Every structure is written in structure tokens, then in C-alpha cells.
């Protein structure tokens, strides 16, 4: 593995992502909505103004759940398939570089661009709140939230790469990515609720089933981070608190790590074996 080559490819991916109008649009939307959510967080409680970090972080969970997966899935899905469609991937593969270097370079570049986007969104909203004197009563909650959002973006980036490795056209890959986004964001919840009601799924199984959706893992981890309890999630949350309280953070981290590593690993194996360029 030649890390100079990996870094050269990563830098190019980073530059391309920052020039990608959709990526910039998602980042701006995230920034504007994050600021708006921060401002309105306490409005419902009768206070108009910027909220403290802890409560703001709670209000940002749903925003992260909507925008971050969409952003990561889209750029991940385009990564390999888009280049294959434009024939630039075949030209890259004809150079004296390995497929592992190409894969890692692209992944690293997109990882950095996602990190830059999230840091910008959370950073500016945090800065504005601080300047407005709302007080950094619980800044660690925001830092942990950023870290969790970043991990969530990596899970979706890996899923995007998985789609990209199995398709040859950028448009098709993005289409599949958008469908999966819908599944993760909406259909996954509805499906699990329906399954739980009709199949009378035991509460323990329901908790473990929810870990099959990385967005649910993020949501539980984020709520647990802010409130140190999952009571708000209902019986499954209460059960998880009683049964696994000491291990919950480890369970959530392991779940997110698996969602990062497994799809990325399968995507790499497929890309390495691919020979229809």
C-alpha cells in the first residue's frame, strides 16, 4: 500500500466533493436548519432565543437523521459507478496503482468531505449560539453528537460504496441510494412497528431488530448521550435500559462500527474482483 498515492486520490475526491453542487447544497441546508433548530429549541417552552447545547442537540437529532444519510449515500453511490460510467475509472485502473489504493483513496476523500460538512454545520451553529450568550452549559453533548453524526455518515458512506461497487451507472446507483434512504428513514420504522404488532415480537427481539437500522442505532445512541436514559423510546427503551444499561454505549458503537465495516468490506471485495471495465 502506497499512502502517497492514497492521499493524492483522497485530495482529489475532497476537492471534487467540495465542488459538487448537491453536496454544497446539502451542507448549506444542514447549516441553515441547524441554526434555525437551535434558535427555536426553547420557543415551545415559552423562551424565544438560542437554546443550551444539550437541548439543541436533542432537537438536531431528527435533522441529522434526515440530511446526513442522504448526503453520504448520494456521494458514496456516485463514487465508483459515476467514474465507471465516464470511463475515468478504467483509465485510473490502467495506471500503476492498486485497486486497494483507489478504493481507500476515494473512501478517505469522501470521509474527509463529510467531516468538513458536519464540522461546518455544527461548528457555525455552535459558534453562533455561544456568541449569543446562550451558554455552553453542556458542550460535550454537542461534541458527542457531532461524533455520532460523523459515525452515522460513515455507515451510509459504506452503504453508498456497496451500491456503487455493484452498479455500472452513476444515475442507477444514486437512484438505489435514494430508495435505501427512504427505507432507512421511513419504511424501516413503519416496517418494524408493523412487524412488532402483527407478529407480537418479544421486547428483547424488538430492541435487537432496531439495531438492524443504523439510523435507529444513531437515534438511540444520541438520546442516550443527552438524557442518559432511553425511557422516551417506550417499552423497548425501558427494557434496554434495565437489561443492558452498562453495555448500551458499547452495543451502539459496535453496531455503528459493523455498519461501517461490513458494507465497505463487501464493496471492496466486489470492486477488487470486478473485471468489466
Amino acid at each position, binding site marked *: 500500500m502506497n499512502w*502517497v*498515492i492514497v492521499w*493524492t486520490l483522497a485530495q482529489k475526491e475532497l476537492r471534487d466533493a467540495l465542488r459538487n453542487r448537491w453536496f454544497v447544497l446539502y451542507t448549506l441546508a444542514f447549516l441553515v436548519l441547524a441554526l434555525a433548530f437551535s434558535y427555536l429549541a426553547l420557543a415551545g417552552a415559552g423562551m424565544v432565543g438560542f437554546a443550551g447545547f444539550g437541548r439543541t442537540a436533542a432537537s438536531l437529532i431528527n435533522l441529522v437523521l434526515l440530511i446526513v444519510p442522504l448526503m453520504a449515500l448520494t456521494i458514496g453511490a456516485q463514487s465508483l459507478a459515476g467514474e465507471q460510467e465516464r*470511463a475515468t475509472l478504467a*483509465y485510473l485502473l490502467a495506471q*500503476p*496503482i492498486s485497486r486497494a489504493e483507489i478504493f481507500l483513496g476515494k473512501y478517505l476523500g469522501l470521509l474527509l468531505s463529510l467531516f468538513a460538512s458536519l464540522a461546518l454545520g455544527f461548528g457555525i451553529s455552535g459558534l453562533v449560539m455561544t456568541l449569543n450568550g446562550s451558554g455552553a452549559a453542556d458542550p460535550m453533548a454537542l461534541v458527542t453528537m457531532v461524533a455520532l453524526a460523523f459515525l452515522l455518515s460513515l455507515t451510509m458512506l459504506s452503504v453508498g460504496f456497496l451500491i456503487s461497487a455493484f452498479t455500472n451507472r452513476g444515475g442507477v446507483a444514486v437512484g438505489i441510494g435514494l430508495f435505501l434512504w427512504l427505507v432507512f428513514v421511513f419504511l424501516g420504522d413503519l416496517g418494524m412497528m408493523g412487524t412488532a404488532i402483527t407478529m407480537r415480537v418479544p421486547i428483547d427481539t424488538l430492541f435487537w431488530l432496531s439495531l438492524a437500522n443504523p439510523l435507529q442505532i444513531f437515534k438511540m445512541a444520541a438520546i442516550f448521550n443527552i438524557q442518559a436514559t432511553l425511557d422516551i423510546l417506550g417499552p423497548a427503551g425501558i427494557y434496554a435500559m434495565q437489561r443492558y444499561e452498562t453495555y448500551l454505549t458499547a452495543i451502539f458503537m459496535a453496531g455503528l462500527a459493523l455498519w461501517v465495516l461490513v458494507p465497505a468490506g463487501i464493496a471492496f471485495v466486489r470492486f477488487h474482483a470486478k473485471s468489466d471495465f
Partner: protein
Amino acid sequence: MITFTHLTKRFGRYTAVDNLSFNVAPEQATALWGPNGAGKTTVIKCLLGLLRYNGTIRVDGYDAYRQGRQARRLVGYVPQELAFYEEMSTLDTARFFAQLKQAPRTEAVTLLSQVGLAEHAGKPVAALSGGMKQRLALALALLGDPPVLVLDEPTSNLDPAGRSQFLQLLAQVKAAGKTILFTSHRLEEIEQIADQVIVMERGAVRLTCPGDELATALGLRTTVKLHLPTGLLDNALDVLQRAGYAARRNGVGVLVDVHPGEKAQPIHTLNQAQIAVTDFEVESS
């Protein structure tokens, strides 16, 4: 320098390359010649590790698939479909590929000058003409000074002026001692550049011959129809036949069978005999 041994590539039931074996000698130019679908591009893609195949390809001893990186380090590649990052500038493109090939960054500037693109270095690749992009591809292929140059139909998308300019550059590269493997279906390119030609048909080698003997080996013939003032027809026929041409009268003109690479020679011969040709047509078979 490059050896192909029993190379076979199948796409499902279709056999694109069928048990192909040949050698590319060092510092020589070898052409793969054949109609579309003969399997020329597939051979190149196998050499670059873009396709899996049966058989063996070795570049200076390195297995092109198992030791792909080492083999590709020895090869500069000019693709048929030029696929660059269109929004990058010409110089940034050259520097990017120089970094990937771990060639000195200064080489990017030197090679752009060498192919006549120095004044276009700041332009985005999208703004370059087809001929300029082809020259950029040649510059990128030469980064890192690889001993082998592989070109897939390098002039197929160029106009006559661009083609001529590119072939001149290629002749310079050949003179510098590079081993060249290229595909083409243009006879004049083969005759100008190739020392050896592998004629392919339906994925197999039909024949191998020196580049300048291809037309003869394939029985290719070109007929030039010369239009002349009626009063000069007999005189012209006599001059051409005395010069050794197979010439005959045809209505208001003279038909002359020539080697495909010498179409202008009969006109030159007649001009030397003070006989002006008013028009001409070319038919190949």
C-alpha cells in the same frame, strides 16, 4: 518485451480473443490490425488488467494480472475513449497523474511542452480540442518514462491535420527507443509506424508480417482514376506504362492500380512529363 501466450477471453458464449500468441520485440512498433470486433481492444484491456483472461501476458517478465502494478509501471497507455477529469486544468491533470505514477512534478511541465500543450496548461481539459486531448493522453502516457507505450486506435477521432501531427509525435517517441504496441485499422498508420503487424480476425491471428508488406500480404489494391484532357490520354497512358504502372484507359480518364500508400505517385509522374491532371478519384478494394 511483451509476450502473449495462449490468450483467450470469453464474454459468456462469445469468444472475443481466441488462443492468441505473439511477441512484441523491444524498441519495435507492433500493430494490431483488423476490422471492428476483431478483438484488438480486448487484447489491450487484458494487458492492462482491466479484464480477466485465460493464458499469460508478460511485460518484461512481469505477469500482467498477478503482478499488475509492476507490469503497468512499465506501460504508458493512450486509450481509444479519452476519459479525463474534464473540470481539471491541463497542468493539474498532468501533475495528478505524475503523482500517481510517482514521476517528478517537473516532468508534467516538460511533457506538456514536448507535445505542444504548454500554452494550454491553464485551460480546463474540457476546453481542449480532440487533437489536443490526444496529445495530452500521449504526455500522460509518457510520465515516468515507461519503456512501453500502448495505444488503442490513437487517431480514430482526429481530423487529417491532427492525425498527421500525432503520428509525427509518435514517430519521435519510437525514435527515442520506446517499445510500441498499437491498434489501428488505417493502413497508412501501419506503414508509417509499425515494424510488425499482427492481423487479427474474429479474435485470432490471421497473419503476421512486416508493416510495409501489409498491403501486399492482404492483397489490398487501390485504383486511382485520373481525369485528363482528351488529347493527352494516349500520351499519359504511354508515360505511366513506361514508368511501370498497370494503367488502362477508361472513358475520359486513365485507371492506374497503385500500392495504397503511393496514391499520388502517378500524378507526380505525369507532372514530370508536363502532363497536367485535371481531377482524380480513388477506389480501394
